[in-house]
């Protein structure tokens, strides 16, 4: 099958993979909203959603139907095109990250070797940064197009927060990249599968900084300043209703899943199951075990995100900026120096 100098089998394979990953992420995000409400309920000692279906398991579907059925309102003073573009951009940017995440080792199907990764590009982790910096536009455009002071203020807050914490995130990551000597996520995970330790052992401080920055990038508590109700009513999506609001809320959960996947791949071995030799089972089964392992790691990270959300109160805006610029960035630079010195000393 070679038309136009293309291997069409590869195209079909990738399209199927993209569909599975995108719809899989959407499905997980749907149930993350349910998980969030259940975790909140457990932490606050109340039953939580338990009416729709057994244990309230159909609650996300009920929420989805409610959001779609609601009346669609576009304010008269809003910039119509940009008002619609905003949530779409937020959603696209959060889903695009999944292209470089390695979901498992290679599987063999119909005599083809299929990599469980949409694209293993040479600059994998930089691609993630590019997509993250695109995510800011969804919020900024939506907030501005609403033509509402609160939305505008909140979107400016969100953008400045994202830009500030991207710096600390990048610096924390550079220290890790110095030890891995590769930007490709696949290579980084394979190194951890083959090597004896996960990267968290070499980069504990780097991981802590990366995790805090990820909380801020996902607009999660204690960094959910853009959604501070007592100051800004509802935040940058105040004027949105129906599924457009749903897109913004959903994008946040998908961001959480993607950043959990990135953290699991970068610092916690990705699809590597500890104390288990993958070569003892058939490659396809090993790959499936790998996918399951990565999913479990992602769920654990998401739980950590939620635990923090329902435990720690929100920062004040100046505290947020002080933490970002005066604590995180110097610490990240310090981490960079230590890592550089250790590499030089050949440890």
């Amino acid at each position, binding site marked *: 099958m070679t038309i*136009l*100098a*293309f291997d069409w089998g590869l195209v079909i394979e990738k399209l199927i993979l993209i569909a599975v990953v995108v719809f899989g992420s959407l499905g997980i995000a749907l149930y993350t909203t349910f998980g969030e409400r259940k975790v909140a309920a457990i932490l606050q000692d109340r039953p939580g959603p338990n009416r729709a279906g057994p244990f309230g398991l159909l609650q996300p579907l009920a929420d989805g139907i409610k959001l779609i059925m609601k009346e669609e309102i576009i304010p008269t003073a809003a*910039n119509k095109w*940009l008002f619609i573009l905003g949530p779409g951009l937020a959603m696209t940017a959060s889903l695009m990250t999944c292209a470089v995440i390695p979901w498992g080792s290679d599987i063999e199907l119909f005599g083809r070797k299929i990599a469980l990764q949409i694209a293993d*590009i*040479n*600059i994998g982790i*930089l*691609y993630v*940064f*590019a997509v993250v*910096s*695109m995510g*800011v*536009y969804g919020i*900024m*455009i939506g907030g*501005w197009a609403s033509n509402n002071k609160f939305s*505008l203020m909140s979107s*400016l807050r969100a*953008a400045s927060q994202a*830009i500030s914490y991207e710096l600390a995130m990048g610096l924390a990551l550079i220290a890790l990249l110095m030890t891995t000597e590769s*930007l490709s996520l696949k290579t980084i995970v394979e190194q951890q599968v083959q090597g004896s330790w996960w990267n968290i052992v070499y980069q504990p401080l780097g991981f802590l900084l990366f995790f805090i920055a990820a909380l801020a990038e996902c607009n999660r508590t204690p960094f959910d300043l853009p959604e501070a109700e007592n100051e800004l009513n509802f935040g940058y999506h105040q004027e949105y209703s129906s599924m457009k609001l749903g897109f913004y809320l959903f994008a946040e959960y998908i961001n959480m899943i993607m950043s959990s996947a990135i953290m699991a791949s970068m610092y916690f071995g990705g699809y590597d199951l500890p104390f288990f030799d993958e070569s003892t089972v058939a490659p396809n089964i090993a790959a499936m075990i790998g996918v399951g392992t990565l999913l479990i790691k992602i769920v654990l990270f998401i739980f950590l995100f939620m635990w923090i959300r329902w435990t720690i109160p929100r920062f004040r805006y100046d505290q947020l900026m002080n933490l970002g610029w005066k604590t995180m960035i110097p610490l990240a630079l310090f981490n960079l120096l230590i890592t550089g010195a250790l590499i030089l000393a050949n440890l």
Partner: protein
Amino acid sequence: MSTVDILFYLLSAFAIVSATMVLISKNPIHSVLWLILVFFAISGHYILLNAQFGTIVNIIVYAGAIMVLFLFVIMLMNIKKDAEPQKQLLVKLTGVVAGGSLLTLLIAVVKQTTQIENKQVLLKEGTIGLILTLGQALFTDYVIPFEISSVLFLSAMVGAVIIGKK
């Protein structure tokens, strides 16, 4: 026509249309958004040259960081369509003549440069734009210019902080 050719013409058309829209959009926010699309089209050209690092840095720095600052400024100034100063016809005409002359000059210079005459662009392959090659070139052959430019950046940053404090 190969796939690369088709992609090249598509991306070029995309870049030119977006660049024109930057100029003719009345709303400054729309102009900024079209400019972001121009950067994406140019990044597509980098991908055709297999310059992956160039692609991603173009997106992170230009489309990601600089354009966000542009948007910030325009949103906070809240420029309206009607409030924009209208230029006189003579000024517009002068601008067209000046810009057109610059374009003609640039094309002439590029066409007559002997170094690039009869040279083929490395499409789809070549390692020159990969991060490994680039890093080795920057930190071995060009280490002094590289370090000097970083000092320049540092002084610009210090200058910005000092101006901001006044």
